[in-house]
């Protein structure tokens, strides 16, 4: 039998990384949403909303994300080795925060102590920022290493968290502070929308693989339009309304759109827009005589 040669041999233009798939995306999808939810569980706690449900769901999501990672690594039985490089590795740091996050989270859920609740929220934010930094440190993927990915990842995590908090509140009929959550979400989708444009213009400016830019353009509609600007308008209307139904339904729809688009964005970022650097030559060589040739950077915008 003959190996299918395919078109992957001798690639010079950027191609999509194949090491991190949906399982790795899952880490950021669930981890981002989960930590965001834990933060908003704490905020809700201040407003007198129930803490246990959103906090537990948030922690469960973070746990699911970590399970995804564990399912992806080549040597899962050696997983504990992940702790050996806190000095520079954001993956180590993320792993280090996790046990503290879970321990304090469960303690906060069990005891209800305010200080613990805030500590958990802080740890959740730290965890979320580790995730964002982890992506940024991936110098081999132009769409990931742009510094503007950090605020974008963090903001989408918080958006998703706020959205899930709205959905939990809606589901558990904990409507008292629904409007507050919607206000937070409005601010966050606005910030996330701006962060998105800042990120994309950053990529245009620095240069990025053509196909990576194309993959991101393809989610302009579902992410920016339907996931940010539509909820922005709907939330505005909801906040301006006094109708319980309007507040409820527009809140729920916005929440679904905001967190769904956030997950879409992260899946696309990891599995569709993650074109690598490719290869480039600033000059072509002189072959005996002449001046060689100009630069070659196939597949780049």
């Amino acid at each position, binding site marked *: 039998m003959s*190996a299918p*040669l395919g078109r992957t041999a001798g690639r010079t233009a950027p191609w999509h990384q194949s090491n991190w798939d949906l399982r790795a995306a899952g880490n950021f999808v669930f981890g981002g949403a989960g930590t965001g939810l834990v933060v908003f569980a704490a905020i809700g706690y201040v407003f007198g909303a129930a803490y246990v449900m959103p906090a537990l769901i948030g922690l469960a999501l973070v746990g699911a994300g970590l399970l995804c990672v564990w399912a992806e690594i080549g040597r899962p039985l050696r997983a504990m080795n992940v702790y050996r490089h806190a000095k520079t590795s954001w993956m180590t740091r993320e792993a280090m925060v996790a046990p503290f996050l879970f321990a304090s989270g469960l303690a906060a859920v069990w005891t209800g102590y305010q200080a613990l609740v805030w500590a958990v929220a802080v740890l959740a934010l730290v965890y979320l920022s580790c995730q964002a930094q982890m992506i940024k440190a991936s110098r081999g993927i132009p769409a990931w290493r742009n510094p503007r990915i950090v605020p974008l990842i963090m903001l989408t995590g918080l958006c998703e968290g706020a959205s899930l908090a709205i959905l939990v509140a809606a589901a558990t009929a904990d409507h008292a502070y629904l409007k507050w959550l919607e206000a937070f979400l409005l601010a966050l989708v606005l910030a996330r929308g701006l962060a998105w444009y800042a990120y994309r213009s950053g990529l245009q400016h620095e240069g990025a693989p053509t196909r990576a830019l194309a993959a991101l353009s393809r989610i302009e509609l579902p992410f920016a339009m339907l996931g940010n600007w539509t909820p922005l308008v709907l939330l505005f209307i909801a906040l301006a309304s006094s109708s319980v139904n309007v507040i409820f339904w527009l809140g729920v729809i916005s929440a679904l759109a905001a967190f769904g688009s956030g997950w879409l964005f992260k899946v696309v970022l990891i599995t569709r827009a993650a074109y690598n650097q490719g290869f480039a030559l600033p000059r072509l060589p002189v072959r005996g*005589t*002449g001046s060689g040739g100009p630069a070659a950077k196939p597949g780049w915008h």
Partner: protein
Amino acid sequence: MAKSVRKVPEYCYQCVAGPDLLTVKVEDGVATEIEPNFRAAEVHPGGGKCCVKAYGLVQKTYNPDRVLQPMKRTNPKKGREHDPRFVPIGWDEALDIVSSKLNEIRAKGLLDQEGYPRVAASFGGGGVPTYYMGTFPAFLAAWGAVDFSFGSGQGVGCTHSEHMYGELWHRAFTVCPDTPSTRYVLSFGANAEAAGGVIGAWRHADARVRGMKRVQIEPHISVTGAASAEWIPIKPKTDAAFLFAMVHLMLHEHARERLDIPFIKAHTGSPYLVGPHHYFLRDPRTRKPLIWDLTSDRAVPFDQLDTDPALEGAFKLDALEVGADGQEWMHRGVAAKTSFGMLVQHMLPYTPEWAESVCDIVPGTIRRITNEYLDHACVGETIEIDGEVLAFRPVSIALGRTVNNGWGGYECVWARTLIPCLLGALEVPGGTLGTTVRLNRPATSRQASVKMGPDGFMDYPMNPTDFEHWQSSPKVRNAHATLVPLSANSPWSQSLGPTHFAWMFRKQSPDHWKKVTAPDLWFVYRTNPSISFWDTAEVVNRISEFPFVVGFAYTPDETNWMADILLPECTDLESTQLIRIGGTKFIEAFWDHEGFALRQPAVKPRGDTRDFTDIATELAARTGLLEQYNDAINRGAACTALKGKDFDFGLDPAVKHTSEEIWDRMCRAASTEVTDGRTSEGLAWYREHGYRTRPISRLVWYLFPELRKQGIRFEMPYQERLLRVGVQLGNRLHEQGIKWWDTQLTEYQALPPYKDFPGIWERETVAQGCKLEDYPFWLITARSMQYAWGSNVGIPLIDEVAGNLKGHRGIVINARRARELGIEDGDIIEVRSYVGKTHGPAVLREGIRPDTLLMIGQFSHWATPYAKDMKAPSMNSLVAMSMALTDATGSSADLVRVGVRRVGAAAA
């Protein structure tokens, strides 16, 4: 950790650019790695390295699809659709079957009713298999008449016209620049970076860094074009137009002083006077060609001393003109021009403006290139080599396949030889050199093959065309001695005849020609004509008609699919053989040493395979030829003679000797030769050291000193001898009523005019009933270093790394042209000619002419394991074996007009 690690020295001769040297790392008896023979860097002009092909030898050795024991066919039907249903048998039974067949044949007589040898044998190109078949050549020599006519592409698709005309004009079986010192190379499709071997690649890299400029002129930017200073996309098969335009410019737009006038006058046939019947004017008494001596203002024989020959002018004289078949004219007061004068006139129409309309290159470029060539020529300069002062002319011209074979090959090789002659740049340092001889003898020394012939030019073993001696009844099926006088009569001559004729005439005999019979027995080894020749579907049909085929097999393949017996040999790293290395040899193998190298069993042979030498010995014994076989070995039929002036390691002719014994004696003879008798170490020494050499003089690289010493001129520009040969050959053929070689006879011209070479292929396409606009593309092929010479088609490692280079396994097409046709990169396209069709993924590139398609290498396998699943396209099933497309030397070219259409989207 391996317990035992050995590094075993070997040679690699998988292609004619070698042999090169290497070592195999063997860990606990398993071959794991190929490496260069680092010590050999002292003598090997390529740093002791071996190329990518050699690294496939580990997978070749352990290929699970190898035939590991003799096989017998049980399906009496033969053909692509008939599985042979081979069953394993023992060696005794296998050798019995083969030798009974041979004995049967011998009893009937070695020649059949048509006078053709009953036994035929086909081996792969360039003599490569000879160095893997042990002493089998000695068995064939002992046997007697063998027909080597059934080719697999050698002699036809190779650098054919260059072989013949090159040997005629400067003992150049192949031609090469003097790369280490040249400064300017015009390369018309010569793919040195793919086909030049290790030494070629090494030398050209050094040359580039040194500042040598190579201009690559070819329809697509090959790996050689990539590594050149400039790429010029010439229209296929129009190279002669560019070359003719260059000659025109040198003669009509540049001052005569730019040429090497003293050289032209003294060392070429340029001053020879030409008569009204186009033959030389001769002194009636001595019959020597005449020149016009300006000093005494009269005609004198060419070899008269102290003359100043006229190069141009019109003269009146009394002289004898000798034509063909003894026809003569005695002229009084005849008007005559010099050969050079005729050349000048002949080249007048070939302006760069004319050339542009033919080859699609702007006149400015042709003028600039010619200027650069002249500027680099250093006419008048000298250099000292080993104490001798020689002309230094660092300019050269290389021609590739499809340029130097097929119609137009003669014109290209003529112009390419003429241009250096105008500048004194032929066979001198820096210039254009021949590499070795295979038609002239001895094969071991070009210098020794130089002998004074008629008219002050080199002698040449032309096959006779006079009435008494012409071989009217061909002795072998490709009729080389009958049809191609230039093919000479050396052991290589059969393979240099029209080796497609044997296949063609089996299907349909031409008029007034004796029937081409099938051989009673056909040996085939290390060659695969069902893949590597043309009209491959028909080749399979012809092979299927052969009654008895013995395939020395490595794996099943498309040719031994029709075999009756498969005999599995020990492959490259499992058997013993010695080869000559060094001196000067094909492609770019120019050494400062010469000697011998060994290949030896690095690992135990797999399965029940046998060393080819032992197989040969067994066959000899079983056919009653043991004595003749051993005698042949003693005389040097396998590598080198065992008996010489001062040594005798000869085998006892009456005894069966083992491979080890035979090669031990060969090694002793080799050691004796290399050390001038000081030592005669045998196999054990070579097993440890791998090779043995002695230094040689670099003067061996250059032939001009030998010509000068013997007072011989280069037979340039006027081909009077060829003119006569052509007329005589025509007379002989017409006496037999044969007219189907008449077009070919038109190539025998003293000063060749340019002909519309692409038009020949176009007219043939139309003659086959096609509309040219349905076949708008020129399909060409190019060498792949990774796959060249076919050994690696079934090797996954090679397939994998070859995939890093664009074009492998696909069809290269100009990107813009492809998009006009709605074809995207990777789309499956069908390419069809009037012969057949093939398909594969489109590879869109900028570096190819919009009117040209490229298929790299030779594939489309259907039986060879691994290769058959690659589904790589090949042009061979699209190219015809055709009389119309065959030139006078019996070659054709890898070229055909094709149509293209998209048949599917890119595979996911």
